[in-house]
């Protein structure tokens, strides 16, 4: 199982069989089972979970999100199966597998922006006044906000764009005496 840091993947598995299941064909004859994912020292893996989908199908979900890059590594893990109703009588079984948390590709679509600062202008009747609109800016923490943004080189994402709407605050169109023209972004 391989998953990019900051993303998630799932893997469906079939419930472990037992002798009663084999003999009577009823997977719940001995009750439900609990699945957990642990490392080889028995510590639960916080970014992995197992949930019953339906019938005898369970789903492993791996969703790691590093605060920096600390989760980006390969792990030797075990899927531990315990009988809910007979946990004291039936020993758990484990299935070993490997999971790899990979460094994601740079994704500039995750770049966050802050609003521009509003400006004021006085426009005497009978005169022509030109106002330059303040552009928005890339958020200061944009390049540390997610694993996929941390994978981007600093300031490598585009900082261009365009005003796609310019209207009055009540959403009405600009009056005829206010016109707009683009300069550069």
């Amino acid at each position, binding site marked *: 199982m391989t998953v990019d840091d900051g993303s998630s993947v799932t893997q469906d598995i079939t419930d472990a069989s037992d002798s009663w299941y084999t003999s009577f064909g009823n997977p719940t004859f001995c009750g439900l089972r609990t699945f957990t994912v642990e490392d080889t020292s028995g510590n639960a893996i916080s970014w992995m979970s197992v949930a019953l989908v339906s019938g005898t199908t369970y789903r492993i979900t791996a969703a790691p999100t590093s605060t920096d890059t600390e989760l980006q590594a390969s792990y030797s893990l075990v899927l531990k199966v315990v009988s809910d109703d007979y946990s004291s009588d039936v020993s758990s079984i484990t299935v070993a597998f490997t999971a790899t948390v990979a460094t994601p590709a740079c994704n*500039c*679509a*995750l*770049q*966050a*922006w*802050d*609003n*521009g600062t*509003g*400006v*004021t*202008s*006085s*426009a*005497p*009747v009978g005169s022509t*006044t030109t*106002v330059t*609109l*303040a*552009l*928005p800016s*890339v958020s200061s923490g944009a390049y540390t906000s997610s694993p996929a943004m941390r994978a981007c080189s600093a300031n490598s*994402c*585009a*900082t*261009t*764009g*365009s*005003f*796609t*709407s*310019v*209207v*009055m*605050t009540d959403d009405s169109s*600009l*009056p005829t005496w*206010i016109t707009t023209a683009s300069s550069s972004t």
Partner: protein
Amino acid sequence: MASNDYVVKVVYTPTAGSNNPAYTAVTITVTCEITSFALSGAGTTSISYSTFGTTAVIDGSGLTFT
């Protein structure tokens, strides 16, 4: 001097971004000062001088025709 504010808001669509900033970009204060006007005759009732149509009407009832 009479004035009225016109507030313009914008939406910016970045080439690469997770959000489209939407904000008040400019407030235009239109000012108007009447320096003189011609009187064609003495007014009678409801004398006013409209500078912004619906936004600012100067009460002229106190003006004296000379």
